[in-house]
């Protein structure tokens, strides 16, 4: 075997390895889409579950996930963007800045179950929110904070320095400059980051397990202090806590399909926004 064929063989081996990732992802997604599609119907999406989740729909889980995510993003977005503005516009190399950066990377690496423990200790017991949408939403907010900060920071850094200099040269204050000449141009990137955060929050299960905890809850919530069902938790429940696995399969696949459609749809949306604006804004 000469050098040329050896190289071709090696490249093909690498190619096969790389494409096997595509095959595996494709297999998981197609399996869920094909076997879940039959379950999806208007009643499935608009009715509460019945008979331990073996019949009826998943509306309470969809609503629960919606409220949890809304609560998480409402808390994490302003905080995350403000933190990113500090890092890009104000921060000078200092101990404080280093500590903020260390905190963000640490936060990004904390296991989700540990966020659950934290939420349980702080929000559920210390602040006496009980297991509720509020406790779960705030826990998820801490979890997606690094995602939002990193994405917003990238978006803010992509705004050319000239935009800032031009505004400052005309006598605008720093805050006025940020408001009129920086934030508007960073908005698409910030949106991308928040959508990714939403996708992440919608799919997380472990923190919800500890802070919202309701395995089978076929009701819609009335207030932020209520316990609530959620899509990922409902899937976990259907996949492990139901005695008759075969009978539960249509509901399992249906729930899994709604969940990945939601999460991957978010990711796709974020990708499209990014692609659209990177074409539109060139400076």
């Amino acid at each position: 075997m000469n050098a040329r064929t050896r190289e071709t063989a090696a490249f093909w081996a690498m190619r096969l390895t790389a494409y096997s990732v595509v095959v595996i992802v494709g297999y998981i997604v197609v399996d869920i889409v094909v076997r879940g599609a039959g379950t999806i119907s208007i009643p499935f999406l608009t009715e509460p579950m019945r008979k331990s989740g073996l019949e009826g729909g998943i509306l309470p889980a969809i609503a629960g996930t919606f409220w949890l995510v809304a609560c998480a993003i409402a808390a994490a977005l302003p905080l995350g963007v403000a933190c990113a503005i500090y890092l890009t516009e104000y921060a000078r190399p200092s101990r404080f800045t280093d500590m903020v950066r260390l905190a963000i990377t640490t936060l990004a690496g904390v296991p989700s179950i540990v966020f659950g423990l934290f939420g349980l200790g702080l929000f559920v017991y210390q602040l006496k929110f009980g297991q509720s949408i509020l406790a779960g939403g705030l826990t998820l907010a801490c979890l997606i904070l690094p995602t939002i900060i990193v994405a917003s920071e990238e978006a803010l850094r992509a705004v050319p320095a000239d935009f800032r200099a031009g505004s400052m040269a005309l006598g605008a204050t720093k805050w006025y400059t940020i408001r009129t000449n920086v934030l508007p141009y960073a908005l698409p990137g910030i949106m991308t980051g928040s959508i990714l955060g939403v996708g992440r929050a919608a799919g997380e299960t472990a923190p919800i397990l500890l802070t919202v905890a309701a395995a089978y809850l076929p009701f819609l919530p009335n207030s932020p202090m209520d316990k609530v069902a959620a899509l990922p938790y409902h899937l976990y429940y259907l996949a492990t806590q139901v005695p008759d696995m075969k009978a539960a399969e249509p509901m399992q696949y249906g729930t899994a399909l709604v969940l990945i459609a939601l999460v991957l749809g978010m990711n796709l949306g974020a990708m499209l926004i990014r692609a659209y604006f990177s074409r539109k804004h060139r400076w």
Partner: protein
Amino acid sequence: MRTSHWTDKVARLVFTAAAANAILIVFLIFVFIGAESRTFMGTEGLGALLDTQWVPTSEIDARYGLLPILGGSLLVTFLATLFAIPFGVIGAIYLAEVAKPWEREILKPFVEMLAGIPSVVVGFFGVVVLGPMVRDVFGLNTGFTALTAALLLALMAVPTILTISEDAIRNVPSAYKQASVALGASRLQTIFKVCVPAALSGIVAAVMLGIGRVVGETMAVLMVAGGRPVITANPMDGVRTMTATIAAEMGDVAVGDTHYSVLFVVGVVLLLMTFTLNFIAQRVLKKYGYHQA
């Protein structure tokens, strides 16, 4: 010095406070998890963690040995890393050095998609597809084994390892490659004798971040690892990891008692493990000027 308007001062204050808040959250995480584990440290003490049995629910003789669940975590993590490294690293090399631009356009979204699949869905896939597959292939009674969990976790570690390794390989100065090619080396030789060695620290950091992800993963292992807290090195055995222990048992404990508290001790161990891994990995990445993860 520029004199600034009062709104400007307020804005600066607000943004600085937001940044300080990130530090505060990390601080609070350590404080709360530490505080809740105090009860256990007071009543049972550190020594109780060295027991070889985890039987926290026994009323006569409760045992809080971390070794079985720590062992479970280590076994699953070791296997998952073993499976994930070839795919992550070779995939990264392929994407950075071999793939044509249009191939990247196809491959990258799939990798991002894999990173985006929620862990409970991966776990579900393990329960209905991979578990039975493992059971049939190896002729076992059940497909809920350390091996099944490791395979799923490998899937979740691949995107982390791949993305960061690719960055590291791309960051190798092109002068190195040009010099290698100018000396008559083939593309393959250049990749394995120049690019990969030059990017090695970044690849190692990528693997460490991947391991951090695997150690902290909860749902997939909770669903397919078998849930048995035994000390074993056999991939075909069912095991229980630290994360799964917290998730499975927190629902049944009385707030404030020893069992409740020991689960926070497990949380402290997890937190310290992932923090150390991430800290070292970030240091390495920063030192070599790679893109921050």
